[in-house]
């Protein structure tokens, strides 16, 4: 990944592909604390049943 891609704001999006619903989004840097905040926000919208979360295979998530 080129360095410039990590600069500037990123839009974190939680998307339900089945019904094309955007559950929530956050604009911020590509940092762990933004990811944590994002997961917390998404969790507020969900019921007790935890869905499968899928994403691209970026090393950052592991």
């Amino acid at each position: 990944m080129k360095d410039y891609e990590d600069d500037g704001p990123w839009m974190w999006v939680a998307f339900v592909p089945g019904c094309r619903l955007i559950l929530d989004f956050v604009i911020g840097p590509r940092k762990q604390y933004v990811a944590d905040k994002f997961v917390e926000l998404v969790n507020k919208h969900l019921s007790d049943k935890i869905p499968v979360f899928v994403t691209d295979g970026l090393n950052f998530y592991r």
Partner: protein
Amino acid sequence: MGERGPKPQFINVACPNRDCKLYGLDDQGNVIGNGTYISRGEKTRRYLCHHRGKAFCDHTDIFYHDLHKDEHTIDLTLKISMKGMSIEAIADVLEVQSASVKRWLARAAEQCDKVNDNMMKNVEVSRIEMDELWVIIQKNSS
């Protein structure tokens, strides 16, 4: 019964004050009518909550509350903005100040957030895709 018929009952009106115990609950008997006034050319009713003693009106907590411009112009602003026209261009076409357009857009965004928070609860889905996209946010508004 008075000379003008039975006194109106406002059973469908709930107190909008978040500090009130009866906040958001209708048909509790705590809301009474407290006169009317004309706002932006329309008759607007004022209410009083007996529980907290706070007054409110038909426009309290809605998007148009305390805005002086007519609803049609504001609606048009938001619609044009969604089609992609710049803030300066909208202000120019509708003959309003660009600061007003920015304020209406910010207020609309806040209101959308409230609606979203209220309606998007207990969502049951089987799969969620979470990704981050690199975006460019322009510093100037035009």
